């Protein structure tokens, strides 16, 4: 399912809203989530999961072409932990 498939599905279930509004709303939700993580905040969605940042410490890397050492600064990477409801729904679908 892609972002545009998701907009289609939502437009079919939320019939009181215009397609344009659904598009704007999906854009807003994705922007809000990216913005929260970009400013170091967590996202907690009950029944779905939580997003947080994990720190990667600085390290000495190598340029794979030249073999030259380069120092890489520490950075943050996004991390997702699925919630119980999502874990169960995904796992139960296999068992049936």
């Amino acid at each position, binding site marked *: *399912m892609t*972002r545009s498939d998701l907009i289609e599905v939502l437009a079919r279930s939320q019939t009181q809203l215009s397609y344009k509004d659904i598009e704007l*709303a999906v854009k807003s939700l994705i922007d809000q989530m990216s913005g929260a993580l*970009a400013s170091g905040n967590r996202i907690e969605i009950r*029944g779905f999961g939580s997003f947080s940042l994990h720190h990667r410490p600085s390290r000495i890397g190598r340029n794979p072409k030249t073999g030259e050492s380069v120092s890489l600064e520490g950075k943050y*990477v*996004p991390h997702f932990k699925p919630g119980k409801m999502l874990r169960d729904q995904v796992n139960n679908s*296999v068992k049936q």
Partner: protein
Amino acid sequence: MTLTKADMADRLFDDVGLNKRESKELVEAFFGEVRTALGRGEVVKLSGFGNFNLRDKKQRPGRNPKTGEEIPISARRVVTFHAGQKLKARVERYTGDD
């Protein structure tokens, strides 16, 4: 600070002009549809954010950490998230200062 479904619905009310009830329903439906798709075994790709993938894990040996007793961890399907380039780049710029 933590972003929640209530915060997200408030922003839909402010930014998109949906009413409070529509905002709340749309936020629920958004996550509900992603979960349903994953439950059907479909990978979800949200451009500008990232991909939710599915991995099938084989049964493997495990242990009850309390008792030390060996119990197999059953075969299962799990969700993994891979942030897209755009999100990764934005998060990398976060320095941890604020």
